[in-house]
């Protein structure tokens, strides 16, 4: 066996052994490296990778909470969340899609276009992702589908919820809800962890103001999903929490009535309880259909809304700015009395116009009113009388009273669409226009023209605070607690006519803040307003109520759009003959009943002409409706405990 090659063989095997040793050493190094890597991944970085793995595994689907309801004063729901019947289709579960669509077409009203659209959507999506066949089925279609469900594999009837409004009568004050936009997400903090795709949020009005509380708490479903995004199983579900419901001070019946009354007009009406500031009605016209906004607006409808000259989307009652016109005369007179500029029986002679500072100031009555005192000045709305009063009073004192009575600042809070208007004075002009005040402008201010700007709601508040005897009230639209301080005070005063306490001390016991120096002045204004509405020659005399139950005291006004030229004035051009856009806005403010005031109202009709003709008839009808429901309202109010 010891062949010559065997030595060679031994050398060779030693060489192989040596080289193998090197390789084995290298293997050991690699092995250690692998263990090191495992330690790094599975021990050192385990937490990081565990969270990454969970991030892979779990996906959460947020569930939109149910939006709280908004109710009127009588607990009628004026914005509610109602079931919505939808039909979804999961292509994966359908055996034969074409056949299914034929069956569906036989049962529902689906057009061929819709079918081909759905088929395109299905092609693009994953097979387990549902497509919405029908977004809003009525109950009869929905029940028919449920009847045939066993033949319709892959079809899923879904009961969802959506914001629903009974009608469009309160569209402006309620506002509308619509899909969350990117901008909403950026600007509203409460939406950060609340944003559910497809969830509607309040965009205007009360829906916006109350959004944070009414929207509820978002729920979620946590699913384990596979690599393709298919839900494997539900891990956890949290239904979330429905939003809070709110009771408002609005009267849905009055809203409907007023809304019908204003149909086709560009107009606004506010009605307010003069003692507690409860807004009974707030209507702007023309209105829009809030239900249309819930599921994404139809483009044609949207265009028709934004192109309409009557601006249906604007809430004219709180965001429309109009010169108050002659309705301001109540405040001018009151301011003059309070500042002892005039006495009630001081007179001026009205010859139809006066010339001052090189300018002609016309009275609306070309022939003039003759000898005019305060009562007649308001009754006839004599411009010359108020030019004289304003001239003596000065704009700064006037603006002080006007502001005290609620003009020039927002009445409600948190309505982004509400505007504050302007109560001009010398400082204001210097600041915002950069010029000195001209004396002539005081005269224009005295009849509510010029720089004066106010909303119908402000005028309503102003009137209410005159009607209630001159006490400050805080208007409200959300009924949060019973507020009967002022009524209790009046009742106490009636029952204790000989109360020794001075008035100012007494009212502070009732948590009241008087706006007057001498309440007698308020009564003078109220009396003058009565004469304006109920005595021959009064500007709204034609629309009075004889029945004392409904008798109201008001003040007409018209806010000038375009100055009359001398020629027009000479020709006695009537408002009705002017082009629509050039006609004055008609205004009317009133309170009723005169003997025992309960409600104040303001009516605005854009380009309606004179307040007496266009606005007062509307006010008359609304006042009747509101007063007819007064007993009911008081009884509901009294049933409610001290705080709700």
């Amino acid at each position, binding site marked *: 066996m010891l062949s010559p090659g065997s030595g060679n063989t031994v050398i060779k095997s030693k060489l192989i*052994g040596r080289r193998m040793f090197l390789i084995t050493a290298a293997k050991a190094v690699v092995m250690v490296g692998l263990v090191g890597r495992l330690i790094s991944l599975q021990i050192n970085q385990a937490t990081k990778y565990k969270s990454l793995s969970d991030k892979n595994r779990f996906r959460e689907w947020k569930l939109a909470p149910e939006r709280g309801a908004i109710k009127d004063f009588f607990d009628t729901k004026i914005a509610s969340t109602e079931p919505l019947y939808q039909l979804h289709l999961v292509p994966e579960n359908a055996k034969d899609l074409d056949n299914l669509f034929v069956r569906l077409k036989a049962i529902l009203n689906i057009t061929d276009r819709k079918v081909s659209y759905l088929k395109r959507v299905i092609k693009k999506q994953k097979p387990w992702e549902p497509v919405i066949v029908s977004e809003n089925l009525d109950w009869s279609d929905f029940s028919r589908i449920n009847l045939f469900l066993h033949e319709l594999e892959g079809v899923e009837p879904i009961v969802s919820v959506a914001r629903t409004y009974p009608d469009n009568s309160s569209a402006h004050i309620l506002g509308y809800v619509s899909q969350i936009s990117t901008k909403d997400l950026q600007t509203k903090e409460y939406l950060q962890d609340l944003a559910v795709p497809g969830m509607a949020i309040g965009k205007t009005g009360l829906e916006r103001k109350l959004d944070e509380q009414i929207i509820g708490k978002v729920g979620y479903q946590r699913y384990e999903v596979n690599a393709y995004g298919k839900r494997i199983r539900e891990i956890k579900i949290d239904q979330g929490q429905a939003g809070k419901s709110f009771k408002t001070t609005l009267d849905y019946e009055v809203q409907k009535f007023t809304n019908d009354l204003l149909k086709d007009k560009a107009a606004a009406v506010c009605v307010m309880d003069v003692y507690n500031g409860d807004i009974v009605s707030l209507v702007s016209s023309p209105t829009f259909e809030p239900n249309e906004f819930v599921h994404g607006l139809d483009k044609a409808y949207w265009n028709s809304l934004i192109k309409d000259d009557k601006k249906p989307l604007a809430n004219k009652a709180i965001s429309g700015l109009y010169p108050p016109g002659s309705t301001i005369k109540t405040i001018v007179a009151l301011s003059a009395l309070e500042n002892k500029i005039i006495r009630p029986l001081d007179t001026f002679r009205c010859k139809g116009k006066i010339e001052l500072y090189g300018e002609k100031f016309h009275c609306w009555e070309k022939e003039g009113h003759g000898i005019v005192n305060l009562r007649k000045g308001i009754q006839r709305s004599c411009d010359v009388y108020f030019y004289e009063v304003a001239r003596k009073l000065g704009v700064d004192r006037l603006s002080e009273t006007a502001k005290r009575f609620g003009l020039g600042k927002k009445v409600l809070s948190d309505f982004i669409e509400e505007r504050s208007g302007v109560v001009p004075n010398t400082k204001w002009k210097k600041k915002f226009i950069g010029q000195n005040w001209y004396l002539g402008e005081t005269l224009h201010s005295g009849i509510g023209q010029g720089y004066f700007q106010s909303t119908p709601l402000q005028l309503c508040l102003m009137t209410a605070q005159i009607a209630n005897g001159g006490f400050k009230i805080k208007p409200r639209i959300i009924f949060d607690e019973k507020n009967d301080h002022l009524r209790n005070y009046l009742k106490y005063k009636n029952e204790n006519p000989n109360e020794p306490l001075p008035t100012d001390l007494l009212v502070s016991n009732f948590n009241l803040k008087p706006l007057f120096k001498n309440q007698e002045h308020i009564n003078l204004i109220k009396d003058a307003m009565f004469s304006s509405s109920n005595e021959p020659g009064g500007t709204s005399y034609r629309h009075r109520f004889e029945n004392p139950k409904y008798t109201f005291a008001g003040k007409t006004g018209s806010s000038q759009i375009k100055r009359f030229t001398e020629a027009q004035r000479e020709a006695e051009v009537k408002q009705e003959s002017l082009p629509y856009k050039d006609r004055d806005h008609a205004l009317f403010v009133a309170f009723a009943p005169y003997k025992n005031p309960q409600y104040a109202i303001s009516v605005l009709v854009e380009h309606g002409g004179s307040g007496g003709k266009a606005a007062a008839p509307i006010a008359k009808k609304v006042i009747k409706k509101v007063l007819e429901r007064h007993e009911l309202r008081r009884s509901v109010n009294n049933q409610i405990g001290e705080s709700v």
Partner: protein
Amino acid sequence: MLQPRSIQSSLGIRDKILSIDYILVFSILILGITSMFAMYSTDGGEFKYHTNSHILRFFVFFGMFFVVSFISIRFWHETSYLIYIGVFILLLGVKYFGLTSSGSKRWLDLYFMNLQPSELMKIGLILFLAKYYHRISIEGVNSFRYLLLPITVLVAPVILVATQPDLGTSILIAAGGVIVAWLAGVRAKFFTISGIAMLALLPIAISFLKPYQKSRILTFLNPERDPLGAGYQIIQSKIAIGSGGLFGKGFLNGSQSYLDYLPEKHTDFIFTLFSEEFGFFGSLFILLLYALILSRIIRIGHMTRSNFGKLYCYSFATAFFIYVAVNMMMVLGLLPIVGSPLPIMSYGGSSMMAIMFGLGIVMSCKIYKDVPVN
């Protein structure tokens, strides 16, 4: 040394059974059973196609392992060239009659199974070169004349496999061949020179790469380059392994694999699945099993008398180690995804067949350790 040839070459069946390396057999069996659990988990905890077929294959080829073991090493030595040529013909067959799947032609349809000859070539080349270097004298090893044939038998199948295309397997085949040559004493200088030549040819080779192969290499260099595309596999595999932690998520609870985040979980990423479910200790257990198998193979190589046996066992051990290391480094994000199965663990008949065949020859070396091959 002076034992009569006749006695050695005709060992009784009892002797054969007694000289089996039971530690090696036992390690293979444990690894096989472990792989069945892993496969059962990839099927979502049910006995489905992959699990059943894997179990069947394991036992069929485990049986084959014994058959191969009991055949004399001399026989394997004699048939080495034939085996190589046979496998090479199969590779050529793939080129002309192969089945195409996901863009590459790797399989032959043998009716009862789809055979992947490139896997068999891993063993075939080692066998060929072990015999070749066994026969030439130590002086001849480094002469150019004797380098020509090894280079030819190495390069030919590598090119065939690389053009299937199957870059990963071709590299592993080449690695096996290079190791035999190295062990046989081919000078380091030669490897350095060919290494430099390869580097010089690299740009040309890259231009032949398919776009997906290029993207795999780029992705390896920066997995976050395209997290949902090419980098996906590496990232998901790292997440799976890392999230396994010390003790793992538990058997059948590997969310990454169960929810299909893990790609190729039956084959290349079977270690990832196991590691996710059984954690660091599970991974360590697998590594130790492989280390044990390797040490037994090296021990057999040490014990066997013939240089053919030594060359074969050492080379096979090293190649086996490379398969394991490449696969693990791949799933651990240390190498690009080249597509190489984990021996015994991964699903795949041809790989299992090749490994069991290779182990069988190792065991034959053990049983016939004192039998001279020529």
